[in-house]
């Protein structure tokens, strides 16, 4: 198989590819490099509150790399457990979104087109309000004297209010609520394309409906599930607003640590180091996933050609 290299691309292809690459370089790569730079600086009082990496003094270029942030990060167990806790919370959120979102996406995809648009609108509707407001609404619902507790006590199900607000449970509720649409939409886009004749073929060959779902629908919808899971997992790990507003003092998440370092401690290098490690943490599974995908595609192509 011929390997495509950059030099083979004609000018026209370059022109179409350039804008997205420029966008990515300008708004993703450049800011990240700035953060990376800050993460290797040392703390300093002043504006900006960190030491420059390279200095030109007496016609001598001195490069000072400080690993203080990274050293602290790996020596203080607080940071490590925060990473673990963030990943765990994001993973549980993703799993719950999958369990709740799959049936919803499936139902929407199987509805008649007119109903389908209405349901999709329902999924997208929350985006019309600011996330901040919606999370505030959850504070109102989950508080000890909030809607949920009042309602349950009025029903007589409980005598004393349930302690949900300012616990991890509240954070889970908030995260699942906020990220559910991000799981539903890509999965819906996948499920709606599924050829119903494949299911008919499965029934025709003797598969009961649930067996047809497990052997046909589920495996064929995996790309949608993975896309949705990525869209939920990655932003959940770094989420700040929801754990801040719904979580307790002991709810450990990366977003809050970053905030504290940047704004409360004014320790920019430390905050930058925390950020860089988090990006790395998220990048590795993404790259592995992408690599596997490409490899699979290549294997398929080679088989087709061979």
């Amino acid at each position: 198989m011929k390997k495509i290299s950059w030099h083979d691309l004609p000018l026209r292809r370059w022109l179409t590819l350039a804008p997205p690459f420029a966008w990515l370089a300008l708004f993703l790569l450049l800011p990240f490099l700035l953060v990376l730079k800050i993460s290797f600086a040392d703390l300093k009082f002043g504006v900006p509150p960190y030491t420059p990496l390279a200095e030109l003094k007496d016609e001598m270029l001195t490069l000072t790399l400080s690993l203080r942030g990274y050293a602290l990060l790996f020596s203080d167990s607080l940071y490590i457990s925060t990473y673990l806790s963030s990943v765990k919370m994001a993973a549980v959120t993703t799993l719950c979104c999958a369990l709740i979102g799959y049936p919803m996406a499936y139902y929407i995809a199987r509805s008649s087109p007119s109903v389908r648009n209405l349901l999709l609108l329902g999924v997208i509707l929350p985006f019309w309000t600011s996330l901040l407001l919606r999370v505030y609404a959850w504070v109102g619902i989950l508080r000890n004297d909030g809607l949920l507790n009042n309602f349950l006590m009025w029903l007589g199900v409980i005598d004393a209010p349930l302690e949900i607000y300012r616990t991890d449970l509240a954070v889970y509720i908030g995260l699942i609520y906020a990220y559910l649409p991000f799981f539903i939409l890509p999965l819906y886009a996948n499920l709606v394309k599924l050829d119903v004749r494949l299911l008919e073929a499965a029934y025709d060959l003797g598969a009961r409906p649930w067996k047809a779902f497990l052997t046909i629908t589920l495996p064929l919808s995996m790309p949608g599930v993975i896309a949705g899971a990525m869209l939920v997992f990655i932003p959940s790990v770094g989420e700040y607003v929801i754990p801040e507003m719904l979580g307790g003092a002991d709810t450990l998440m990366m977003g809050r640590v970053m905030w504290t370092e940047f704004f409360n401690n004014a320790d920019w290098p430390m905050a930058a180091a925390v950020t860089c490690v988090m990006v790395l943490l998220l990048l590795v599974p993404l790259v592995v996933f992408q690599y596997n995908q490409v490899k699979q595609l290549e294997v398929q192509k080679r088989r087709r050609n061979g």
Partner: protein
Amino acid sequence: MDNRSAASPWSGDADEFVRIEDIVKIYGDTVAVQSVSLSVRRHEIFALLGSSGCGKSTLLRMLAGFEEATSGRIYLDNEDITSLPPYRRPVNMMFQSYALFPHMTVEANVAFGLRQEGVPRNEIHERVFEALDLVQMAGYARRKPHQLSGGQQQRVALARSLVKRPKLLLLDEPMSALDKQIRQRTQIELVKILEQVGVTCIMVTHDQEEAMTMADRLAVMTEGQIIQCGTPQEVYTFPNSRFVAGFIGSTNLFTGTIVVDEADHVLIESADLTRPLYVNHGISEPLGMEVHVSVRPEHIRVLREQPESESNWGHGMVSHVAWMGSYARYQVRLDAGMVVEAAVPGQVLAQAEAPGLDDEVYVAWSSDSATVLPS
């Protein structure tokens, strides 16, 4: 109305295997299939022929169990399968688009049906390769469907629908996804495989050539009803209506009124022809009634001299000649304006000096090649 007694003509057939009794399918306010009754014999290849929207596919889907009949019953091998779900019917279908599972290998696709039955693993393997051998696809067992050509996919789909040894095989437009060049060869191959397996088969097609090539018997459908049912030769030779005559092959239709009605022949006067039409079979229509007479293009001769007979010919001018290889397709515009189509065999063309474009000619046919169509 008691439909049981109306359905009795079929119950006498000892070979009857599939019996469709007064099947009706209504979607909302459209009637897709209206009161179809049909009987298919054991080991027969039966074709439902019609243009799109005629209800043939709906009928097939009701046989597979994907659609529920509004009323009527379907019997397979003396068992009422009308309300069985598709996964409990001893019926398998080869889909128009094949519907192969894209994430499974050829082997897994064929094995799928047997897995659902809980057949032991070594037996599955044996039967899968038996089926793949039958369609000559055993060498492709490890491939995925997208790595196969259209013809190969079709054979895998066939193996998949035969591997469970269904009592009834359904084919939905089996050739529509294939290139025209390989269709004819594939049709014959498919018939050979079906005969080898000995399975009863109902196929749906809009292609009359395909139905004539493959089917033992066929039914012509339009507007949710069966208009005529019989062997390809019967339906071609004795169409019972203008629709069937035009649908099965092409034909020339003369409109006229009956002027002489004897037991052994009728004479029909048509505004399209200066001479009357003489048809040597009696009909049940009354004198003076308007009827249509069908004459197939291959029965029409194109002559330079005026025929001696008193009837069954017309005068006109060649308006178009298409050389088809083994025959030439002539279009002759009659003096009254009607265009008659004639298929002239190659050897006839070679013998005489063949008429060319704009030549004055006579078209003629024998009295036994014309058929009177009442509707």
